[in-house]
């Protein structure tokens, strides 16, 4: 079980690895597409890496609902619970 802070930090690391964005730019209110300029292919890579890192399953149909970094943190936290 990871705290929301730990999930955010882990996600920021994954986003940095995939896109080169500074981890501190990955904030809870940021939109993956609008603010972070992450395309759908990068998003899928991030999702799969997050599944492995946090030991959760993020169904494909759920990915479109993960609009902001906060959405992803909440989903992962919920899936771990």
């Amino acid at each position: 079980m990871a705290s929301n802070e730990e999930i955010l930090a882990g996600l920021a690391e994954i986003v940095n690895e995939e896109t080169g964005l500074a981890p501190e730019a990955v904030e809870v209110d940021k939109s993956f597409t609008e603010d972070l300029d992450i395309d759908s292919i990068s998003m899928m890579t991030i999702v799969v890496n997050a599944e492995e890192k946090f030991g959760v399953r993020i169904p494909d149909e759920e990915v479109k609902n993960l609009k902001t970094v906060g959405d992803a943190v909440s989903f992962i936290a919920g899936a771990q619970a």
Partner: protein
Amino acid sequence: MTRKVVITGLGATTPIGGDVPTMWNNALKGVSGARTLEDEWVATYELPVHFAARCSTPALEVLSRVEAKRMDPSTQFGVIASREAWADSGITEIDPDRLAVAFATGIGGVWTLLNAWDTLKEKGPRRVLPMTVPMLMPNGVAAAVSLDLGARAGAHTPVSACASGTEALHLGLELIRSGKADVVMCGGAEAAIHPMPLAAFASMQALSRRNDDPQGASRPYDLGRDGFVMGEGAGALVLEAEEHAIARGARIYGELAGTSVTADAYHITAPDPQGLGATRALKAAMFDGRIQAEDVVHVNAHATSTPVGDKPEYTALRASLGNHIDNVAVSATKSQMGHLLGASGAVEAVLTVLAVYHRKAPVTINLENQDPEIPLDVVTSARDLPAGDVVALSNSFGFGGHNAVIAVRSI
């Protein structure tokens, strides 16, 4: 009146230099880029060949990590060479609709394909990267170069095994002559030093087994030749309509005077022993460039160092140039950098252009006992080429019976 096409930019990343100045310097000195492979997989799979010629500058020293992540290694090399050629051309403004790409590969994204297959078997479909398809597709390199330069007049990928890089120049010339583009980024890229292609080429007895002497293994025309040495890398050339180059005051290296492509229709891998397809290609390229045998002073030969391949090329050269071939300085640069497969024609084109521009023929190393059946005048130490109007040829032949020839004329 046919549009004249000139070469205004050069780029390369190869086993004997990560950029054009380093490669050229080494090509005149005569060095070998072949090394024993330190990778674990050589022993794991008990590969019969333990060496290859890797690029002297790893792609990750040039590209950013994030940039490289989305490219197969072959595409990484292609983009590196293309950027160098583009900067070298000095083009700062161009109508993107008049800029095309013709960037070849022989095998394409073989690392990406096989890594994805390993991932599927070991971790399941969910872990197969979403970028797998665009990274493994053979047009990946042309597409990446087109994106990088903003080239919108078409991005093409000629695929004809080891003739691919030369065929890209043939296509580039046609695109400019026909008026479809004013500038074409041409080239070839390959990154196939992976255990599977090494095993496959070894299995067909195409690779040298000189494991105790990697640097002496690629020895075109030598009696002791026993196969080629796998290389990797990319070459890139900016082709430009002459009037376009003159209008912007470009530095012009030379003219791409003529090209041709023929097919043997003889055997899927063996070259026609009489070199008939190669002869037709040589004659057609010379006809295309209005070139007489006497104009030719230098040939960058295909010469891969296989027992069966080197001789038919000699036969074709004599059939095309007649006894004038005795006056031609022939360089077999695969002796230094190994065989870059689909990139070899592009890299050798860069060397051929530089030979004409600097009037120097690069070196053939490891020629100790020249095969008496191949009495060519082989350049074994850097040699000056004559002044005046001269032409140099570069040949490439590929599995499938593909023959491609380019002719470069001095300006």
